[in-house]
């Protein structure tokens, strides 16, 4: 079923919307959650919560890219769950490694969670991503959005793991410089 038809089902409050979502994007949401949580039970819970969140979000939302809309919900829920579970310990899997990598870009200090600041920062990050080649941008997002392991990214892109690590390291450094030049003290 086409995305717009699925979205229409949500708007019509037709419960078939959930089953259609599950059929088309169940595996997609599952893989996003698994990259973060590594636990089937938690993954199932997050994916089910994603469907609930989608049901509650549409209307008023009418997403252009349904997969990404659902993926964002899953990612957010999964990360929240992971933080809740690992509040007092480091945890395993890719997320601790990814967070350590991202720590290179930020100061680590608490900052205001201003909505306007957040929107502006997202815009700047998008501008930075626009300056990257398609491959580098994809590698960056595969790592920091989808939380894929470096080894899996390397296999899929047909390059060595070292190549991916070096690429990500350079992108992080360039992102930090880019944001600093624009007055963002992270």
């Amino acid at each position, binding site marked *: 079923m086409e995305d717009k038809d699925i979205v229409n089902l949500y708007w019509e409050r037709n419960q078939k919307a959930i089953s259609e979502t599950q059929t088309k994007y169940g595996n997609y949401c599952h893989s996003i959650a698994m990259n973060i949580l590594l636990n089937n039970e938690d993954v199932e819970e997050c994916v089910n919560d994603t469907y609930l969140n989608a049901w509650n979000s549409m209307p008023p939302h009418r997403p252009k890219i349904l997969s990404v809309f659902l993926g*964002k919900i899953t990612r957010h829920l999964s990360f929240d769950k992971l933080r809740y579970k690992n509040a007092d310990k480091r945890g395993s899997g890719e997320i601790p490694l990814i*967070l350590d990598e*991202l720590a290179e870009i930020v100061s680590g200090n608490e900052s205001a969670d201003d909505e306007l600041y957040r929107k502006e920062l997202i815009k700047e990050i998008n501008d930075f991503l626009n300056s990257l080649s398609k491959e580098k941008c994809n590698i960056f997002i595969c790592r920091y959005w989808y939380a894929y392991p470096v080894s899996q990214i390397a296999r899929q892109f*047909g390059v060595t793991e070292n190549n991916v690590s070096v690429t990500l390291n350079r992108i992080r450094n360039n992102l930090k410089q880019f944001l600093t030049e624009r007055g963002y003290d992270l």
Partner: protein
Amino acid sequence: MKKEQLFDILGEVDEKKIQSAGETMSRKKKTSSIWLNYGTLVACLCLVIISILSFHLYAKQYVISNHITVHNELLLGSDYCEVTEEQAKKLEKANSIHNKLSTQNFEWYGNCYYDFENDKIMLGLTEISDSNKETVLSYTRNTAVEFYQCDYSYQYLEELYNKLYKNRVILYLFGADRFNISIDKNKVNVHLTNDNKYIAIYIANKMDTIGGAITFSSDIQPTDGDG
């Protein structure tokens, strides 16, 4: 900002980029192509080898059915003998006449050489006519020459030589290591590294559009039953 905050903010980047990256990860993995490439390479090599072997057999059959023989150059080579001053002069004269006539691009001019055995300067024409003889004699001046009918014009032999030269790399790969115009034999000689180089013989022969203008030689004694 804390690293967790940044991770959260990165969740809001451009949706099209997220979609593009997701599609890349769900595409069939590239790693299989490494083995596919090796497999393809091996298959291509096998195909090339089989093709060459088949061509070799085909070329051998061609050589046999066209009764093409490879002469032993060592046996054909002329014995060394003393050249008298008179003979040396005639040899030089023959070469001089050949050099002059070969540059005129006469379609009927074949060759000019000194026949040691008969002590004559032989001049070959593909068409022996009075007008051709008269033209030639203007170049020979008072030198006595004996005309004879030859099979191939020097122009044709040069063209054939040039064709062989253009394809010298392929010919070399298949065993024809050198070639030259043999003026006294009125042919192009192709030297082979051994007498089993059927593919080289086939390729060279195909360039000879008239036929019979190439002789093949090698330093190896011809084996029985071949050729």
